[in-house]
């Protein structure tokens, strides 16, 4: 097991270096350089040259590359051009927010997806199964940002709500906390945060949940046909434990690999959903940075996203090894 973990960790290192190189190449393939944003009539060419020198842009590309790699690997992501503070500080502020949002969404995705998938497989071809399949088709064809806007229309805007709309179904449309957050007590703070999480996490997670339920359904149907399920029935186990013990654990194996596959999609969605809900996460940071041509922030955030995906794939592999006893000693 330990050897397996170490091997997987070692495999991730060249991948991360490659990603880093790719980020560097992409940024330097672009026409112009960061000084472009300071290029305006009042600024003399000498000042721009001075800037280039400060940022090391006058050096040959391979020197720049090595320097850049060295600073990235030591955790120095440079200084934001617009906010005048280290990129590391910005990211460490924002990464947790994105993780909270995506974490909640992942819980939703796999929770809802797995439960619905089981129900559909057990009641294959029933009316419920068909309705859920149809519903899933529409839901995963929805753009997350549009779904977010529609959720805001329905659940946040009083103008469109009927008078008897229950208060429990009203949710805030933006931000992570209310204006009065600091005045709230411990439980009040928690419920305020959870309240703000509801709409964005649904907008972010529900389409992947629909897709997970499809995979789960077919995975369950595949497993239910296996010989060991027949054995479990022949042993006289109640149907409940045949499905929830013997079938479920086997059916979950392929679903775990989905975790790694879905994460890139999830983060893509997070960029859009964070913009829609003004959620102060990495997605919002990168979009704002691009509007303002803040290259150091763009590069670092892109890299951070990729690192998170690689990590999540690693986690999925390890989880797989924990659940499937056959993989351990390979």
């Amino acid at each position: 097991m330990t050897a397996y973990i170490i091997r997987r960790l070692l495999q991730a290192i060249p991948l991360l270096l490659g990603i880093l190189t790719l980020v560097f190449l992409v940024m330097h393939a672009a026409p112009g350089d960061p000084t472009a944003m300071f290029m305006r009539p009042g600024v003399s060419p000498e000042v721009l040259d001075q800037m280039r020198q400060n940022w090391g842009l006058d050096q040959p590309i391979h020197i720049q590359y090595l320097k850049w790699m060295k600073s990235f690997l030591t955790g120095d992501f440079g200084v934001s051009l617009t906010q005048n503070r280290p990129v590391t500080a910005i990211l460490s502020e924002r990464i947790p927010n994105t993780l909270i949002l995506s974490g909640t969404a992942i819980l939703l995705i796999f929770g809802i997806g797995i439960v619905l998938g089981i129900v559909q497989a057990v009641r294959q071809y029933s009316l419920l199964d068909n309705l859920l399949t149809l519903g899933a088709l529409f839901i995963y064809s929805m753009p997350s940002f549009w779904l977010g806007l529609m959720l805001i229309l329905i659940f946040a805007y009083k103008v469109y709500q009927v008078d008897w709309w229950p208060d429990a179904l009203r949710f805030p449309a933006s931000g992570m906390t209310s204006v009065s957050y600091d005045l709230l007590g411990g439980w009040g703070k928690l419920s305020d945060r959870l309240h703000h999480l509801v709409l964005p996490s649904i907008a972010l997670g529900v389409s992947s949940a629909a897709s997970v339920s499809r995979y789960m359904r077919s995975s369950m149907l595949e497993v239910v046909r296996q010989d060991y399920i027949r054995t479990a029935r022949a042993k006289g186990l109640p149907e409940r434990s045949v499905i929830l013990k013997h079938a479920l654990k086997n059916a979950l194996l392929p679903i775990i690999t989905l975790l790694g596959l879905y994460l890139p999609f999830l983060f893509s969605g997070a960029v859009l959903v964070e913009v829609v809900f003004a959620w102060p996460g990495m997605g919002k940071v990168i979009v704002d940075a691009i509007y303002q041509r803040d290259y150091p922030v763009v590069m670092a955030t892109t890299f951070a996203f990729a690192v998170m995906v690689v990590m999540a794939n690693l986690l999925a592999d390890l989880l797989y090894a924990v659940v499937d006893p056959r993989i351990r000693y390979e």
Partner: protein
Amino acid sequence: MNDASGAGKRRRLAALVPGLTQLRRGERLLGLSLLMATLFLVAVLVFAFDRVWATFTAGRIDYWLALFTLIAGLALVWKLGAATAMGAGVVEGSQSQWTLAWREFKKNRAALLGLYLMAFLYVATLLGAYLTPHDPIAIGDVAATRHLPPSLDHLMGTDRFGRDVLTRVLFGARISLAIGFIAIAISITLGTLIGAVAGYFGGVVDTILMRFVDMLISFPRLVLLIAVIALFEPSISLVIAVLGLTLWPSTARIVRGEVLSLRERDFIQAARVLGLGAPRIIFRHIIPNVMGPVIVAATLGLGNIILIEAGLSFLGFGVQPPTPSWGNMINDGREFMVTAWWVSTFPGLAIVLTVVAFNLVGDGLRDALDPRLRIRT
């Protein structure tokens, strides 16, 4: 005598209108869809006659496009009606992979529905200029026309510049679909080639290409896209290029997997023994055999690309206003959602409908083209 000629006349009349013969024979689905298509096209011709007429004088390119679609659509429906009325159908005995796949596909109701939906969307999109009298870009009397709620005059209301949302949705469809098609064509071609090369040659080539694929797949797509687009000035051709050049890895993975198993099959071995060169084997023997999964990936990918393009345009990195695209229209309406919900809602519905259609067709194609699945069910 009289009776017989009356029946004959009726039959001849039925032959003139596509679908009637099929309906008489009891082929309800085919008959109804042909009839509906005819009625729709003729209705456009009648109700938008002034615009059809204006085609010859106004000199607007989209009028010509619509006219061409109208004529081609009518001809196609009539031809199809005549062909199926003869009872010819599929020639028995031609059992090629594609005939089999089509037969399998036809059994799938949901997939057929998706196909109809797709056809309808395309025709509606191309006929756009005839379907609505409004201009998608020109701004009129803003004070009088801004944010009008949906009504008979403006079925989907108007936006903040007083432009008709339905018109913009129809024109946006053209741009979104075109971007999707060109980008998917680029990425599928690249993906198939790279996957086939990696799978066929194996070894170092395979390792290098696949590690590169791993790297590209590690980036959240949208993040990679906006990071690249941010370096240039956003434009439609840039969006197409970037989408096409970054979305191929998933296709490459699929193709590589297929090729790995194909490579060991007898006919490839035989081709090698015959001394055929690698390019010839790849193009003549391998690629035709992986077309099934590639077409499925392309159809499902098209839905996906439309979603991504909408996301890009929504963020302002894709199609730039005033050119309408579904994504930037949703963004346009976002600020005014409290007063005008329709501006953002309808383009989104258009996206959902389109992507649903592509997904239905893609799922149907997968079931029809994937022999492994065919055996299983």
